[in-house]
C-alpha cells in the first residue's frame, strides 16, 4: 500500500468521522441542536481532526525518517575497503537503491516471483534483466551490493508494513476516542478551536524552520569543508583557482573584493539618483507627477534580475566596450571584454534605484510636517529646509535604506553571473572582469555536484559568508529603520 493510498484512507475515515460525530451529537441532544454546547458541525470536526491529525503527523515523520534510518543500517553492510571516500559510498548506495527498486519492478512486471527475488543472491545476469525493465546500472553488480539491496528491500517492506498498520490504528483510535467522548455537554468548539490554533502556530513556525534549515544546511557542509580545507587559507587566501583534480587554492579574498567593488559602484549609481528622486517626489512633485513617476520607477523593481543580467551582457557591456575598449570613442584601451565590474555595477545600480527611492520616500514622508513648517516659517527656502531640517531628521532611516540596498547588491546573483565575468582577481581597474561570491556559488554547485570534494563544498562556506554578511546588514538596517519610525510616531 503506497503512502498516497494511506493518505486517502485516513481522509476517508476523517470524512466518515465528521458525519458520525455530528449524528451522535445530535442524537444525544434528542435531535434538538439548541441543547448542544456547540454547533453540530463542531462535533463532526472534532472527530475528523482527532482521526486525521495524529495519523498524518506520524505518517509525515515516518516518511522522512524511514529512508534515513534504512540508509544508515544498509550502509554498514558495505565493506569499508570497497570505497575510498564518501563520494564513492554515495555512488554505491545509489546503486543499491536502484537494484532494490529494479527487483521490485521485476516482481511487479512478473519477471520473477517475489520468493525468487528475495532469494536471489547471485548478481550474474541481473544487470541485463534490470536493463530490460528500464533500470540502467553503470557497472556490474557486486555481490555485496546485491546483499545490501536485499537487506534494503526487507527493511523497506517491514518499515512500510509497520507504518501502514500504525497509521491506520492511530486513525481508528483517534476516531473511536473522539466519537466516544461526543455528547451534548462536550465542549466541541473549544477543542476544535484549540486544534486550529495549533495549526496556525505551526504555520507561523515555518518561518523559523526555514531559517533553522538554512543555518543547519550551511553549517554542516561548511564544517565538512573546513575539515578538508584549512579555514585560514580560505579566509585569508588571495588566490582563487579551483581545479576538480585537486590542489585547488580557494581563497575568498578576491571574491569578496569583486563583490564589494561591484556593490560599491552599484550604490554609487543608485544612491544619488534614488535619493534625489525620492526628495523631489516627496517634497516638490505635484500629486499628478508623483502618481505617474513613482509607479514608473517601481516598474524597474518589478523586472526580474535575469532581464538585467541579459541587459548587462548584451547591451551595456558592448556599449561600454565601444567607449572604453580599444578603438573606442575615447581611444583608451581599458576594457577587454563586455563583462566587467563596471558593466555589472552600473546595471545593478539601475536595479537598485527604485529600491532606494521608495524606501527613502517613505522615510522622508514620515518626517513630521511641523518641522518643515517651522523651518519655512523662519524664512528658509525649500531646499534649505530639506538640506538642513528634513534630511538630517531622516538620515538614520536613509542610512538604513542604503544598508538594505547594499545587502541586496551583495546578494544579487544573476546580474553578476552574466555581467561581471568569471575571473577572480584582485585589481583596481573597474573595466576588468572580476567575479563575486554569488557567481562562484553558482559555478561551483551547478552541474553534477558531488558533495564530497572541497571544490563543491566551498560553495557552502561561501554561502555561509554571504548569509552572515547580509544577515548582519539586514538586522542592523531593520533595527535602524524601526528605531527611526518609533522616534516620530
Amino acid at each position, binding site marked *: 500500500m503506497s503512502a498516497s493510498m494511506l493518505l486517502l484512507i485516513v481522509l476517508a475515515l476523517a470524512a466518515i468521522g465528521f458525519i458520525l460525530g455530528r449524528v451522535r451529537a445530535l442524537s444525544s441532544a434528542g435531535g434538538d441542536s439548541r441543547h448542544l454546547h456547540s454547533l453540530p458541525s463542531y462535533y463532526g470536526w472534532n472527530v475528523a481532526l482527532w482521526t486525521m491529525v495524529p495519523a498524518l503527523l506520524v505518517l509525515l515523520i515516518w516518511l522522512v525518517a524511514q529512508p534515513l534510518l534504512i540508509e544508515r543500517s544498509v550502509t554498514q553492510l558495505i565493506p569499508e575497503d570497497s570505497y575510498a571516500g564518501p563520494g564513492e559510498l554515495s555512488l554505491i548506495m545509489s546503486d543499491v537503491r536502484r537494484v532494490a527498486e529494479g527487483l521490485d519492478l521485476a516482481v511487479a512486471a512478473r519477471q520473477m516471483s517475489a520468493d525468487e527475488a528475495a532469494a536471489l543472491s547471485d548478481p550474474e545476469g541481473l544487470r541485463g534483466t534490470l536493463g530490460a525493465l528500464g533500470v540502467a546500472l553503470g557497472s556490474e553488480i557486486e555481490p555485496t551490493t546485491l546483499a545490501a539491496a536485499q537487506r534494503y528491500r526487507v527493511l523497506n517492506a517491514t518499515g512500510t508494513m509497520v507504518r501502514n498498520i500504525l497509521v491506520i490504528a492511530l486513525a481508528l483510535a483517534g476516531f473511536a476516542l473522539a466519537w466516544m467522548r461526543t455528547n451534548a455537554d462536550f465542549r466541541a468548539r473549544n477543542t476544535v478551536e484549540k486544534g486550529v490554533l495549533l495549526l496556525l502556530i505551526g504555520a507561523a513556525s515555518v518561518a523559523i524552520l526555514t531559517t533553522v534549515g538554512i543555518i543547519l544546511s550551511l553549517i554542516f557542509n561548511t564544517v565538512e569543508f573546513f575539515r578538508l580545507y584549512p579555514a585560514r587559507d580560505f579566509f585569508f587566501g588571495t588566490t582563487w583557482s579551483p581545479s576538480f583534480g585537486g590542489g585547488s587554492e580557494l581563497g575568498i579574498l578576491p571574491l569578496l573584493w569583486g563583490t564589494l567593488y561591484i556593490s560599491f559602484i552599484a550604490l554609487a549609481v543608485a544612491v544619488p539618483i534614488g535619493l534625489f528622486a525620492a526628495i523631489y517626489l516627496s517634497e*516638490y512633485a505635484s500629486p499628478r507627477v508623483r502618481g505617474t513617476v513613482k509607479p514608473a520607477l517601481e516598474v524597474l523593481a518589478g523586472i526580474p534580475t535575469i532581464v538585467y543580467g541579459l541587459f548587462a551582457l548584451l547591451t551595456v557591456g558592448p556599449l561600454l566596450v565601444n567607449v572604453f575598449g580599444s578603438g573606442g570613442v575615447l581611444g583608451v584601451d581599458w576594457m577587454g571584454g563586455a563583462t566587467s565590474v563596471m558593466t555589472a555595477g552600473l546595471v545593478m545600480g539601475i536595479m537598485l534605484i527604485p529600491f532606494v527611492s521608495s524606501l527613502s520616500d517613505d522615510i522622508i514622508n514620515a518626517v513630521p510636517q511641523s518641522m518643515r513648517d517651522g523651518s519655512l516659517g523662519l524664512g528658509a527656502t525649500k531646499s534649505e529646509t530639506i538640506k538642513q531640517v528634513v534630511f538630517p531628521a531622516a538620515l538614520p532611516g536613509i542610512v538604513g535604506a542604503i544598508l538594505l540596498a547594499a545587502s541586496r547588491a551583495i546578494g544579487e*546573483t544573476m546580474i553578476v553571473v552574466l555581467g561581471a565575468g568569471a575571473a577572480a582577481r584582485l585589481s583596481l581597474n573597474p573595466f576588468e572582469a572580476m567575479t563575486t561570491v554569488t557567481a562562484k556559488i553558482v559555478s561551483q554547485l551547478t552541474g553534477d555536484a558531488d558533495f564530497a570534494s572541497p571544490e563543491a563544498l566551498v560553495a557552502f562556506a561561501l554561502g555561509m559568508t554571504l548569509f552572515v554578511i547580509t544577515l548582519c546588514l539586514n538586522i542592523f538596517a531593520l533595527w535602524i529603520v524601526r528605531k527611526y519610525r518609533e522616534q516620530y510616531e
Partner: protein
Amino acid sequence: MTDATSAGAAPRPARSSSILEQDARTRKRNAAESRFKMYGIAAIGIGIFFLCVLLFAIVRNGIPAFTQTFITAEIALPGDRLDKTGNRDPEEMAKVSTFGYKPVIVDGLVRALEDAGIEIPFEDKADVEKMISAAAPAQVRDTVLANPELVGQTVEFRFLASSRVDGYEKGRVTRGDLARDKNLDAEHLDVVDAMKDAGMLERTFNWDFIFGADASESRPEQAGIGVAMLGSFFMMLVVLALALPIGVAASIYLEEFAPKNRWTDLIEVNISNLAAVPSIVFGILGLAVFIQIAHLPQSAPLVGGLVLTLMTLPTVIISTRASLKAVPPSIRDAALGVGASKMQSTFHHVLPLAMPGILTGTIIGLAQALGETAPLLLIGMVGYIASNYPDGVVSGFMDPNSAMPAQIYEWAKRADPAYYERAWGGIIILLCFLMTMNIIAIILRRRFERRW
C-alpha cells in the same frame, strides 16, 4: 507662509533695498533652490531614461524572435531510397535514419531551385543544405513515417531556414559577418535573395517559439519556450498551493492571536529577515534539504516550487498582515458582541474582508517567484534541455524540466548569437506574464479595496 518664502528672504531693516528688488544673497539662495530642484528632476529623468532604454532594448532585440523564415519546396520522396522493400511498412522504413533523408532533401531543393530558374553559384550543390535547418531531415522522416503512402510522390514541405539565413532576413547577419563564418557563405545569400523573389522563402509569425520545445545547441531556429513555460506553470501551482494557506495561517496567528512574547518577536524578526535574505541562499537550502537529504529528483518543478514557496512566504505574510490590520476593530468587536468566539470572528468576518488584499499580495508574490532564477540554478533546472512535454500531471511535477527564467539564462549562455534573440524574445513573454499578473493585482486592489 509659503508666499513669504517664495518672495525671497525677508528684507532686513539695516539694508535700504526694496522688497521688490532681490539682493545678491537672495538671488544666490534662489539659484541654489532651483539648482536643487533641477537635481531632483535630473535624477527622475535618469531613472525614466534607464527604464526606457531597458524596455527599448528588450523590444528591439526580442521582437525578431517571434517571426521565423521558412523555405517552401516540393520534395520528391523516392521509394528506392526511403523504402527499399516496397512494403510501405512503417517499422521497416524506420530503419532509414535521418542521414538517409538528407540527400533526398538536397536533391529536392536543388531541383526546386532549378525549376524556379535560380542559378546555384557554388560548386558543391549539396551545400544548399546549409540554408535549411538541421531539423529538416527529421521533419521529413516524421511525415513519411506517419503517412507511408507519400513515398514515391512529390510533396510540398515547409522547412525552417537555418539560423544564419533567418538572421540575414532579420538584418542580424550581414554579408560582412559571413566572411568569417563557416556555416554559410555570401554566395548562399544571393540564392536566398533570389528565392525570396521567387516566393520560396517567407517570414511568418513563429508560434513554435511560444509553444515549442527547446532544441539542442546547433539548432537555434527550432528552439521554443513552451516546455519551460509548462515547467514554470507547475512550479507556480506548487507555490500557490503552499504559500497561500501557510502564509495566511501564519499571518492570522501573528496578527490576531499571538501573545506578545519572545517567541512571537523571534518569528517577526525572522520573517522580516527572510524577506531580505539573498535568493541564492534559498537555492542552497533547497539543494541541501530537498535534494541532498530528501533525495527528491533534481530539476523537478516540485523542488523548484518548494524552494520558491519558502522564498515567497515572507512576501505573502507581510502583505496579508497589512490587509488584516486594515480591517477595523469594530468588525471584530461586533462579532464578539453577538457571541462569536475569537476564531469565528476571525474566520467568518475579518478574513473575508481582508481577502482582496491577501490575493493582491499573493499575486505579487507569485510574480516575484515567476521571475526568480538564482535558486533554480542550484537545483539543476539549468543545463537541462527541455525538449519534451511532460506526459501528465505527475510527470509535470516530478520529471526534469526547465522554467522560463532558467531557459532564458540557458539561451543567454549558449555560444550561437542566434540564441540571444531567443533569450530577448523569452524575456518579452516572461514580462507579458508578469505584467498581466500585476495588472490583475492592481484591478483587484482598485475594485475591492475598502476604505473604512
